[in-house]
């Protein structure tokens, strides 16, 4: 090496942050690989699917600054299309089914995005809500969804025709791989030149426009990626639970993902994971305890506290603490 590279303070910070991220990624991967030995795999898979859903949503909200009220539509589309294909074509292997569902959600995202991107702020949110409600209605009426009986009996099948997915542990590792891929996509998107432009748009859109960036194109791409990943989460969830239901398309589901993201930390990478983990745990565990009747009240209180004091979410607050104390 014949040049000594001097790093400016900000490059130094970025390098340290990137190292921290790598360490965190490795630690999480290790936890992910070992967790099913201690914790019921189906519960973990539920957490992973919702974590992916929240990551997808957070890409749009935290990094592109766009609040969508209709993300449930993508979750449900992924789920229903995958379910429909896997039940109608028993020979179809699950990974192809998941791909088809994800593709459908991505296409839907392109359609929604084209309409919604033209508006901003609360109007953008309301357009996504309106479109999602229409999708909900279509799912209610479409015969293939089974209406409120749900699309049942989706076979788990054999991955690549080889690995039997009815084994919870095998399926878990597949879900973990899918999550890691989705998570990696989010990370790469955020830490790329594209992601930097998104950040610029989020912070000061008029300036980004004046700098010559095609703001709408960037927003649309972010929207489509977000929709596709949400669809991936839905498709995977359908294979795990072997069903897709109208709950996945209801606006409550859109509200839940907002809660998860807020709780974990909007605009952080690991926040959605934490948020999803907490919300799913609360719902599953609390529901079976004497406090079960008060789950929504507790969630509401958490929401309020988060907004008042922990606006950066759990991960955000922790990372602020770290930055302050471990310079």
């Amino acid at each position, binding site marked *: 090496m014949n040049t000594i590279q001097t790093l400016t303070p900000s490059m130094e910070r970025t390098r340290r942050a990137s190292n921290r991220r790598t360490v965190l990624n490795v630690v999480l991967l290790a936890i992910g690989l070992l967790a099913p030995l201690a914790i019921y795999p189906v519960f973990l898979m*539920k957490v992973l699917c919702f974590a992916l859903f929240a990551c997808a949503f957070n890409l749009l909200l935290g990094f592109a600054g766009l609040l969508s009220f209709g993300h449930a539509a993508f979750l449900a589309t992924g789920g229903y299309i995958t379910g429909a294909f896997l039940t109608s074509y028993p020979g179809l292997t699950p990974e192809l089914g998941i791909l088809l569902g994800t593709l459908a959600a991505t296409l839907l995202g392109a359609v929604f995005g084209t309409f919604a991107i033209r508006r901003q702020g609360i109007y953008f949110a309301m357009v996504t809500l309106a479109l999602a409600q229409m999708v909900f209605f279509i799912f209610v009426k479409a015969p293939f969804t*089974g209406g409120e009986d749900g699309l049942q009996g989706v076979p788990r099948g054999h991955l690549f025709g080889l690995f039997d997915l009815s084994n919870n542990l095998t399926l878990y590792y597949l879900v973990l791989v899918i999550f890691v891929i989705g998570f990696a996509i989010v990370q790469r998107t955020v830490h790329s030149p594209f992601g930097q432009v998104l950040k610029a748009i989020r912070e000061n859109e008029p300036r980004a426009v004046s700098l010559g960036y095609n703001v709408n194109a960037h927003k649309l791409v972010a929207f489509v990626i977000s929709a596709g990943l949400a669809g991936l989460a839905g498709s995977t969830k359908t294979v795990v*639970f*072997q069903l897709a239901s109208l709950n*996945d398309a209801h606006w409550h589901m859109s509200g839940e993902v907002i809660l998860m993201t807020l709780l974990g930390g909007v605009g952080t990478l690991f926040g959605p994971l934490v948020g999803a983990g907490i919300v799913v745990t609360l*719902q599953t565990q609390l*529901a*079976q305890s004497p406090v*079960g009747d008060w789950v929504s009240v507790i969630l509401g209180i958490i929401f309020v506290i988060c907004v008042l004091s922990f606006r950066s979410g759990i991960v955000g607050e922790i990372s602020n603490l770290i930055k302050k104390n471990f310079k």
Partner: protein
Amino acid sequence: MIRKNSKLVHGIALASLIAAGSAGAAISDEGVVIGYLDDMNGTYSDLAGPAGRVAIEMAIEDFGKTVKGKPVTLISADHRNDPATGSSIAREWLDQESVDLITGLNSSSVAISVTRLVREKNGFAIVTTAASDSITGEHCTPNHFHWVYDTFAVSDPAARAIVEQGGDTWFMLSADYAFGHSMEAAVEKAVSESGGTLAGKARHPFPSSDFSSYILQAQSSGAKVIGLASAGTDLVNAINTASQFGVVESGQSLASLMVFITDMKAIGLDKAKGTKFVTGWYWDMDEQSREWAKRFHDRVGRMPTMVQAGNYSAVTSYLKAVEATGSDDPKVIREYMMANPIDDFFSRNGRVREDGRMVHDMYLAEVKSPEESAGEWDLYKILATIPAEEAFRPLSASKCELVKN
């Protein structure tokens, strides 16, 4: 996080394990575990819900809390009307908590997904709360029974009985959901087969906030009977609106297809009086029922719905079967229960058919007027009994694969 032995024991002390040398070695593991999975907090939590759990506790206590020397335990959970939540809880119960019987299962989508799972894992379930008749139709399995009522049994006999009594023109207002469609179809068929006609129909979104438009349509149709195939708040809303528009005063009558006593209590007698419907059980229908209902009322503070009574009946019958056969193997239990009639305060002339449907006498009832009512819960009068063999969808019309047609 989840630990393997996190069972919720509520009010039923876990008896100390009796030495394994007792008879009943065919009961797997340490005892009989019953899992009650229902909507504990949401839209339907009043018709079964936490009070339905009390009914099961009563059944276990009355049975002596043990069967063949082994303890009977009850765990419960809220599925929040979400099939993914329901099936993941059921999965965990079957994989980790060795649950022998799953019951409750409100909401047809949850019931269908859980019974599929139960079949896959060779468990056993008795569906008490859910309504869809497809549970013993195209979604039947050899590992579950449907106990209390279904969409066919509350609509078909009601329609026939009412047409016979003179109500031969109908307007059907149904929820635009699978259960609404199936009740609408059953009524249409029953009405035309008994010589009546359908003057019009409308399907409302589920849930709907305002029914004035539909009631007006029903009035304009001039039909003698307005059939309501909706449930819960929608039903309450529809009857309330009908009373505001003077439907009954102007000569039409209401037939409600899916009714629970909690609905009628919520609407009130002066608005609901004269409404006809079919029910699977009523607390005041005879001495046995009254006696049980009083005990329930003492514990819960209100009178039981047919589903809560059905919970007691289903669990008791199950425990009897385990006691008699000494086994908790689903196949053995199923054979025993199919071979032995179900006759308790809840079910008269009851038996389990090969499609898993427990058929029993149903009752045509009418809501009393305020003058006829002598007490807070004195809400119905029973007009007629519909025999078990006539009330439910005949096997010849069944879509169940277990039925040899």
